[in-house]
């Protein structure tokens, strides 16, 4: 187990990270429901998410 995010909680980086190309997340089980957002300015919306 790498990390558990509380319901309705989130994790994010607070300093910019350059060069990210791909992201892969392996859920622990089917009960994990996650949404990933990305941006360049710390504002997030559904247009850049999975």
């Amino acid at each position, binding site marked *: 187990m790498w990390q558990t995010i509380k319901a309705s909680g*989130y*994790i994010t980086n607070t300093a910019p990270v*350059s060069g990210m190309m791909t*992201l*892969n997340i392996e859920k*622990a089980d089917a*009960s994990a429901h*996650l949404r990933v957002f990305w*941006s360049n300015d710390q504002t997030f919306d559904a247009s850049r998410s999975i």
Partner: protein
Amino acid sequence: MSTNFNDYKPNYLKIEALGTNDSAINNMTISFHCANYYPSVTLINDNPTLGNITGGGVYFTGSNVTISATPNTNYTFVGWYDTLNNLVSTESSYTFAMPSNDVTYHAKFTTLSKGATTQFGTYPQSKVTDATLISTLNTAAGTLPTSSNSEAWTDYGYYISGPVASYMWYIDVPNSGNLYRGVYFTSYRPYRIDLASSTYDSWQDDHDYYTNETYWFKFEPISWKVLDIVGGKAFLLADLALDAQDFHYSTDDRSINGATVHANNYEHSHIRAWLNDTFYNTAFTTTEKIMIDTTIVDNSASSTGYDPNPYVCDSTNDKVFLLSYSEVTNTNYGFDAYHLSTDINRKKSPSDYALSQGVNRIADSNSSYYWLRSPHSGNYENARRVRADGMAAAYNIVTAASYGVVPALWIIL
């Protein structure tokens, strides 16, 4: 779950747990592009009240970048421009391969829209009727001109019976922040310049403009219809017939640079010279002149509606021009393609000032005939016209001075 961020290059991630359960993650992997530098796209909205833009950010070199512009209602996206104000694209959704360097694009929107009306430049138009103001302007204008002494007035240089004659003058007088043009004439301007002066052969008196009276007209913004917006420019056509001019002041052939030039040659016509000198310098300020693009005006046979046409001339480079037959029957500009239709979009009413210059107004339609730049193919003396009823039909002799002038131009947005 995995993503390549849709080729976007983010600096920030947010992973959110949805629903009511905690979400456990066994493993998370992020791969990185190991470059020394990640170029950026900076977008600047030059008209933020007129529309929105998206797509700025940091991208991998070589990746496809799409930047998008969305105009607000009734406004138009003009284009993307680089930092030197060079037009890059007029596509509202523009995709390009990300270069290795940073790029900055400006988005321009305009309040203009195709088919709408805008104002640009000024020209004497409405007749002054206020007696007090007329008296003030008359005093300011000073002594009235005569054929032997123009005083402070300027001779129009109009023709009667062929040769130029001094009988009609103007003077521009500022008053209380406005500009007015005085018009005074001692003979009637004939509707065809080879005719003698008489009320019978002039339209001036028919519209209540008489000899030896001074009339005043206020310089007002010129109203234009936007025929098209393309390539960062707008194609404008005056809403009114603003003046009355002959197409050319003689039907005689001329020899220019060893070549015979016929009377209906647009390149060497009086009306083209008038538009690009007298009208251009009267109607527009220095700032407005910079906005007017120099148009390569198509004078080919196909533009005249006759092919072949022995009287065509080369393309001309003009600031202001008349529409051609092909333009005034172009549906893309909002006109009916059928030249014999009484197209309301082709009909033009004359200004008060144009009436004072002798344009003929057809009372039933409150509109005038006006010149096109296209020569007729069957006779060297004739040029094409738009009739008062809106038909782009037939032609008239180039010396007709009772036809309206409806200028057209392209402005750089």
